[in-house]
Structure formats: structure tokens, C-alpha cells
């Protein structure tokens, strides 16, 4: 490991931090603007030109709030939870390739790395809910854990279906296999698995559930649970959870882009680059926001039933179907 390599990594890490911070700040604004437009109102307009400085104002406000750790709470765990929710999201971005060369670390187990760090999220919400010693928080924590674990299984099964076709866990190679026109993207590779679009929908649904987004936002069901697991958090403690939510959305959408939409590959065969990756990723992010303001929140029981009774059998079926297809076609 040379010094220049370490230096490059340091620069990249600072870049990732800036990327996470800017995304968190401006996706909140985008969400509020989007929400406004979907409901025929302008959204935030006061701070700066057309509300463009709203995230700065929000950030300063959160920083200046009094940080309160409730005396009834488990102080150490209460402080640890925001860290545990933020760190995995940033770690995942280290192995996600933005383009052919723009990647923090191109490791062979990139795919597992992202999902392994993503799984820590559940524990962070559990910790915050448990340590708060608040009824809303603990109910929310229990819901989030059962929701996230239920949706993790179909998600991973779908990813395994993809893995069988790609034969590698290296994210870089997975994208390279999708080079060419847009029908080479995994989403349209019906020869690998005729149910590929279904696979994509399962993955997207699970991604929404894993990031606790509406219609599956049991972590923060405002009308039922105030602010859910984050009820007792004040100031930046809450701010970090908020940032992490958007960072996780970015990671989830980036994974969707890499696995199904061809990553940085251009849809027309020429001119691939980071711009295509960002375009596709933000299109998925917009869909996530769109879904939130279109569908009402599901009932908790329906949510679990959807995963255990529909998505898991369906994803197992696609997995077996892919295995059989590959066997028949190659025999």
C-alpha cells in the first residue's frame, strides 16, 4: 500500500462525506418541494432564492437546539444509536462504483459488504428505541425490527438470483456485464430470468421497506407514533437520524442502479460515465419520493403479510426458476 494510494483514499473519503452531507441536505429540500408539488402547493420558498437555503437554516437550527438525554434513558446506548445509523450508510458508499474509475475501493465482496453494513441499520433503530425508555419509541423499535428482518430475506433472495446470473459479487464486474444498449441492463435481460422485471419490483419494494420509507414507514408513523424511535432525540441527535435516512435512500437507489439499471453504462451504447450513474440514481430517488406522496401508509399486519406470504415465496420461486433455466439452457 503506497502513500499516494492512502492519500487518494483520504480525498475520496472527504468526497464521500461531502456527498452524503449535500445529498442529505438537498434531498430533504427536494422531498419537501416534491411533496408540495404533489399536493398543489409550492413547498418551502422563504429562505434564500425559492427556498434553496432552507437546508442550511434547518441545519443551523438543529445544531443550536439543546441536546437532551432523558434521565430515564440508557445514556451510552442513547448516544451510540445515531452513530450506528450514520456510519453504515457512509461505509457502503466506499465500495459503490460511481463510474469506471470513480470508486473508493473495488473489492471482490462489494455486494455482500453493502448489504452487511445495511443490516446494521436495524440494530441502530432498535437501540434508539430501547434506550429512549419511551412507549412510542419501543413500539416503533419492535415494529422496525420485525419489518426490516422480514424484508431483508426477499431482498437477499433476489440479490442471489442476480448473483447466479452474474457469477460475481464484484460490483464493478456486475456493471461491466451490462455494457451496451439498454436491453443489456439486468432489468431487461429476460434470457437470464423471464421474471426479471418482477425481481426488480421485489427489490425496489424491499428497498423501500429497508429504508423505512412510506408506504412502509413504521419507524416514524407520525399519526400513530409521534416520531417513533426518535421521539426522545433533540437537536442534532435527531438530525443525524434524518441525514442517515436520506443517505440510506441514496445507497439503496445506487444499488438498484448498479444491479438492475446498468450503473454508469449509457443506454445507447456510447458515452458511459458518472453522469449516467447520477441520472439513473436520482431518477430512482425521485421515484422513491413519488411513491411516498402517492400511497397511504400500509397497516402493520398487511406489511408483514406482504413480505412473508407473497414476497418470500415469490422470490424463492424466481430463484428456483432461474436455476432451472440456466440448467436447461446450458445443458
Amino acid at each position, binding site marked *: 500500500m503506497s502513500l499516494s494510494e492512502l492519500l487518494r483514499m483520504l480525498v475520496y473519503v472527504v468526497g464521500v462525506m461531502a456527498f452524503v452531507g449535500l445529498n442529505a441536505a438537498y434531498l430533504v429540500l427536494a422531498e419537501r418541494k416534491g411533496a408540495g408539488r404533489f399536493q398543489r402547493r409550492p413547498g418551502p420558498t422563504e429562505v434564500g432564492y425559492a427556498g434553496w437555503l432552507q437546508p442550511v437554516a434547518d441545519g443551523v437550527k438543529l445544531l*443550536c437546539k*439543546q441536546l437532551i438525554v432523558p434521565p430515564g434513558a440508557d445514556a451510552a446506548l442513547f448516544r451510540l444509536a445515531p*452513530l450506528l445509523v450514520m456510519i453504515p450508510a457512509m*461505509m457502503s458508499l466506499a465500495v459503490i462504483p460511481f463510474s469506471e474509475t470513480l470508486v473508493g475501493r473495488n473489492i471482490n465482496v462489494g455486494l455482500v459488504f453493502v448489504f452487511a453494513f445495511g443490516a446494521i441499520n436495524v440494530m441502530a433503530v432498535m437501540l434508539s428505541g430501547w434506550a429512549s425508555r419511551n412507549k*412510542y419509541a419501543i413500539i416503533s423499535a419492535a415494529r422496525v425490527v420485525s419489518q426490516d*428482518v422480514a424484508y431483508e430475506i426477499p431482498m437477499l433472495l433476489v440479490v442471489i438470483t442476480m448473483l447466479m446470473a452474474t457469477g460475481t459479487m464484484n460490483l464493478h464486474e456486475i456493471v461491466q456485464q451490462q455494457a451496451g444498449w439498454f436491453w443489456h441492463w439486468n432489468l431487461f435481460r429476460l434470457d437470464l430470468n423471464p421474471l426479471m422485471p418482477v425481481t426488480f419490483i421485489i427489490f425496489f419494494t424491499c428497498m423501500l421497506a429497508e429504508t423505512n420509507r412510506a408506504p412502509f414507514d413504521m419507524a416514524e408513523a407520525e399519526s400513530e407514533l409521534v416520531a417513533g424511535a426518535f*421521539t*426522545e432525540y433533540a437537536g*442534532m441527535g435527531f438530525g443525524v437520524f434524518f441525514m442517515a435516512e436520506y443517505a440510506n435512500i441514496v445507497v439503496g437507489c445506487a444499488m438498484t442502479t448498479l444491479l438492475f439499471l446498468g450503473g454508469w453504462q449509457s443506454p445507447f451504447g456510447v458515452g458511459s460515465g458518472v453522469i449516467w450513474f447520477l441520472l439513473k440514481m436520482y431518477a430512482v430517488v425521485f421515484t422513491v419520493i413519488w411513491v411516498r406522496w402517492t400511497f397511504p401508509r400500509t397497516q402493520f399486519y398487511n406489511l408483514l403479510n406482504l413480505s412473508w406470504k407473497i414476497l418470500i415465496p415469490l422470490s424463492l420461486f424466481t430463484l428456483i426458476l432461474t436455476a432451472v433455466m*440456466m440448467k436447461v439452457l446450458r445443458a
Partner: protein
Amino acid sequence: MSPEFSQYIPIGMLIVIAIAFSAGLLVMSTLMGQKGRRPAIKDTAYECGMLPITPAHGRFSVKFYVVAMLFVLFDIEVVFLYPWAVVFKSLLKDPQTGPLIFTSMLTFIGILFVGFIYALKKGAFDWGTRAKQ
């Protein structure tokens, strides 16, 4: 130091910086935040303005534990599937290993699926209405 290990050094570096970043935000908030009064009412758990009644950590339905156990089961299945999925394509081409890698994992998934059907019929995933009857 082996190259397998040294490729993870930047990852370790990133963990340290990520911790510093998120901890720094909280520390900054502590430094810049208001040092307002802390009356006793501010320190009580929030329950929509009412004083909290009954302990916060109540009892939970056993359903949550059943689902958690089933998750562990399926998660282990997925862990076994990962290495299988990666080598599936290359081993399938080989006529010697092809049938083995195909049938063995299908048997494994088949057995697990029978277990899944059993849990389903037992009502492990029935929440709410049907469980009450």
C-alpha cells in the same frame, strides 16, 4: 502484510473517519446548543403532553419472537446460498459438478420450503384477526 488484508486498510480508515464525522456532529451540537434550563417536566418521557403512566418497556406479543426466529432460519439459508450462487454458473458448465450443484441446492431449498409451509399453516404469520378467533 498480505494483499488480501491490505486492501481493507482504506475501509478501516473510512470507518474511523465516519465515526469521527458523526460523533463530531453530535459534539458540535453539544457545544453550540442552548444551555437552557432543565426543569423536571422537560426530562420526562414524551407522551403527548400527559405524564407517563405504567413502565415504558411493556410486554410484547410472542408473535414478534416467532417472526424473529423464523428470520434467523431464513437468514442462515441465505448465507449458505451466497457462495453457491457465485460459483453456480461456472460449476454448471462442468459435466462432473453440474448435476451435483444443481440438485443439492434445490433439495436444500425444497426442505426449507416445506418448513416454511409448515410455519405458514401453523399460523406463525397470521397477525390480528385470525389469531383472535
